[in-house]
């Protein structure tokens, strides 16, 4: 409480809300993000929550956090926070290490009693000294007491009163960043439309927090954050799971097919199934299956019957779906499998991001079983890649695995709303009527896609199945030469997709000392680090992959123009292994991390500088 507060002008700032998993930190963070977007900031968010719904209250295991990075030109949720709001001792203990040196920490001092400190694992009654936080700007606010005081005449029961303390904290943060309250107030009015008492109480406590921060301004810093220079348009905030669901719906509309999703709830992919279930207004059929296998098998049935079929899952679920993906490969039916990756193996770290399912997506099936693998790289481009995955699946008659991860699935960012008029059409190779000599496995000579004759089509009755198929007729064949031919065709069909996808782009100079290579959800961190180093005059560029199998056609051309290539992934080196196999003429350096956390731009920059100086 010793520091004098200043007005700090910044291009960007990182705020982390941290509390018990029942404290409403996700909502608090979301409301702050939406308000910031509303007044013109660019932003990126990172919800970080435990896998237990209600871990023992007040313990480190139960800490739920929401980090948001606001300002101009934001690509990551930020490595370290400028401001931490810690609602209890456990939140402080768990997250203080993520605050920048000398940053501001706001505490609910009411929760720092003997019991709270003990639960969090503090050994003394002075957590600040114990965790060596004395160089930080610590603001101790009696948030619980002031919330109770503010709501003493509200008519709410004591439990509901205490539950509003997150809004007091939010009010304080709004004052610090000079944000308007009206967006949040409108949110209350909509959310609690039928409970005017709750609306009033929330508004009151939000304002009380705002006023409190103003009153104690001598110790509260206040920030002016630069608005982003953003292209004109209509914007919304979107997270990766929502964007994925919407991209699939958009593809169904463009393909003029009905969308079917057979799925089974699994963290962190469940929201895709939830959102699709909510979209009956656009004709989406969802089937919450009895297990992961039934999830994909109902979808395969729907695909056979002529729907655009998708299934959503995460790593353990992808393992269970393996045999059925092979069936879709053999029967050459369109199918999108969305895998929102999480930490593994086994149950692993269900709520933490990782990129460790790449090999499983590429090879995790019996037999020679090629599928197209696509990866989204930001929350909002999940829309685009979900659309593309569906377009490839339908037009090339193949299963496509779309990889996202817990980081981009739950993270959100402002998104310029596209117009469907700007999206390409999707042409399903449907066989609509009987033609002389039609065979179910005859294929288009360019894409090698077979035609799709759904039950109900007159005169095209045919049988498909998991046994090897005759290359033309589609009937069962055990012929050795035919098996070789079909094995080759299935691989070639997937490889030919490279004629229909964009070439690999380089961000920065097209030749130089160091090429940073990444794929999927690490884009924000890699792009930020590379762009920082470029501004400092380093010869470094970025090539980020969204199409994994097949790879874009110009990989060799891009790679050959750099002295060094470093492949960065949050796994032990799966993509780099794949590149060594597919493009063995290059030497690859690698940078890997498997901690259930995204990269930090700081560690990446250190690593790149080391490689540049070697």
């Amino acid at each position: 409480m010793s520091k004098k507060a200043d007005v700090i002008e910044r291009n960007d700032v990182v705020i982390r809300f941290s509390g018990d998993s029942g404290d409403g930190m996700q909502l608090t963070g979301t409301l702050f993000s939406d308000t910031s977007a509303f007044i013109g900031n660019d932003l990126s968010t990172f919800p970080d929550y435990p896998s237990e719904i209600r871990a023992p209250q007040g313990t480190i295991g139960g800490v739920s956090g929401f980090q948001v990075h606001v300002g101009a030109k934001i690509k990551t949720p930020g490595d370290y926070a400028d401001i931490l709001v810690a609602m209890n001792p456990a939140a402080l203990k768990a997250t203080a290490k993520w605050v920048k040196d000398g940053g501001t920490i706001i505490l609910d001092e009411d929760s720092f009693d003997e019991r709270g400190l003990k639960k969090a694992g503090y050994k003394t009654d002075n957590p600040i000294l114990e965790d060596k936080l004395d160089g930080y700007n610590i603001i101790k606010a009696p948030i619980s007491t002031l919330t109770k005081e503010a709501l003493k005449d509200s008519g709410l029961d004591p439990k509901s009163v205490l539950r509003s303390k997150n809004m007091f904290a939010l009010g304080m943060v709004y004052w610090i960043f000079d944000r308007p309250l009206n967006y949040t107030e409108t949110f209350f009015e909509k959310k609690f439309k039928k409970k005017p008492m709750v609306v009033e109480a929330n508004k009151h406590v939000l304002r009380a927090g705002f006023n409190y921060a103003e009153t104690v301004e001598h110790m509260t810093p206040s920030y002016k954050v630069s608005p982003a220079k953003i292209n004109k348009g209509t914007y919304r905030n979107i997270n990766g799971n929502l964007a994925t669901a919407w991209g699939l719906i958009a593809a169904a509309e463009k393909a003029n097919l009905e969308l079917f999703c057979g799925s089974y709830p699994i963290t962190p992919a469940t929201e895709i199934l939830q959102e699709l279930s909510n979209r009956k207004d656009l004709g989406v059929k969802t089937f919450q299956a009895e297990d992961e296998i039934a999830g994909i098998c109902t979808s395969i049935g729907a695909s056979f019957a002529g729907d655009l079929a998708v299934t959503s899952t995460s790593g353990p679920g992808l393992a269970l779906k393996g045999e059925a993906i092979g069936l879709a490969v053999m029967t050459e039916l369109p199918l999108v499998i969305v895998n929102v990756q999480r930490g593994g193996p086994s149950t692993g770290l269900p709520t933490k991001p990782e990129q460790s399912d790449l090999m499983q997506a590429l090879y995790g099936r019996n037999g020679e079983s090629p599928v197209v693998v696509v990866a989204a790289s930001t929350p909002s481009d999940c829309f685009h890649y979900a659309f593309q995955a569906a377009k490839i699946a339908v037009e090339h008659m193949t299963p496509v695995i779309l990889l996202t991860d817990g980081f981009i699935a739950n993270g959100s960012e402002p998104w310029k709303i596209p117009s469907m008029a700007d999206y390409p059409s999707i042409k399903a190779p449907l066989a609509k009527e009987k033609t002389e000599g039609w065979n179910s496995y005859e294929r288009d000579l360019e894409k090698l896609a077979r035609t799709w004759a759904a039950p109900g089509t007159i005169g095209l009755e045919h049988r498909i199945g998991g046994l090897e198929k005759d290359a033309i007729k589609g009937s069962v064949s055990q012929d050795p030469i035919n098996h070789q031919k079909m094995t080759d065709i299935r691989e070639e069909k997937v490889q030919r997709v490279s004629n229909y996808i964009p070439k690999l782009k380089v961000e920065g100079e097209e030749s130089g000392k160091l090429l940073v290579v990444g794929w999927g959800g690490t884009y924000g961190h890699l792009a930020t680090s590379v762009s920082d180093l470029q501004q400092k005059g380093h010869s470094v560029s970025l090539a980020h992959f969204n199409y994994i199998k097949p790879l874009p056609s110009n990989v060799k051309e891009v790679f050959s123009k750099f002295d060094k290539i470093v492949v960065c992934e949050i796994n032990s080196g799966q993509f780099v292994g794949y590149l060594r196999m597919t493009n063995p003429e290059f030497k690859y350096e690698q940078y890997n991390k498997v901690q259930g956390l995204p990269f930090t731009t700081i560690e990446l920059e250190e690593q790149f500088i080391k490689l540049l100086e070697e």
Partner: protein
Amino acid sequence: MADIQTNFTAKDFKSDQEVRWCPGCGDHAIMNAIQRALPELGYKKENFAFISGIGCSSRFPYYMDTYGFHSIHGRASAIASGVKVANPNLSVWQITGDGDSMAIGGNHFIHIVRRNVDVNIILFNNEIYGLTKGQYSPTSKYGSVTKTSPFGTVEQPFHPGELVIGAQGKFFARSIDTNLKLCQEIFIQASKHEGASVVEVLQNCVIYNDKTHAALSDREHKEDRTIVLRHGEPMIFGKNKDKGLILDAKHLKLKVVELGDEYTEKDLLVHNAEETNPGIHLMLTNMAYPELPVAFGVIRSVKAQTYDKAVQAQVEDVKAKSSIKCVDDLLKSGTTWEV
């Protein structure tokens, strides 16, 4: 739901593939019965879809000139559910065996029944794994000696009908491969019933489990050891129609009585397949020779909402009420701002 009357015959449903079941296998007869039943259902030929898993019986779709899908072991219930929900106008049939539906596919089986998806499920029960050459299955009798139970099994078998009723099933029927006419009659009823219709067909495997149902197919005694139930008719059986079933109310179980001085037809139970309470159906389903005759015919057939129709209705209902009509509407819904 039938669309029109057709002029097809059983022959039109035979595909060009050579039928490769063993000579004497019960599957041949069951397929004949289905091929004879189909023209009587009033569907157009292109609206039939046969879905199977893995096993001898699951080769079935290849031999049918309809749309067909020979899928993976145990998953036919799930695939058939997807087909029916995607296109409720189809007549969807699942062909499965006791290994496929009672073991590896047990989970999917109980759930298709519970959801009441309008699929006709024909369960070929030969109480053995035939395609893998003779291991015991979940329906093999206790003590069965097979390649994986050389000293006899030590596990109790499933009774498919009991499982269907336990899963809140609305339709269960039983037939035997030696009674083609009864099979055909039951398949027609199964198809006409809206919802998951499970038909257990007792089927003989000539190679690995020959004569497992011989007690029930034996020409001399079959009519004394089985009873064909028909809705609305008294439960009479026997070569001479001289036996019947009554409910022993005191012990709450079924009892065989001889018709004569003590009991007349009026004393017998009258079969009501449409009774919603499954109690009596469970008793009938579980009747086992030699204590009681084994029940054939449609044991349970209760009307209820089907899953596929309910999904369709909900989509139509929400569509009509929502202001979101296309993806552009969706993208602009909720909170947005202009820059």
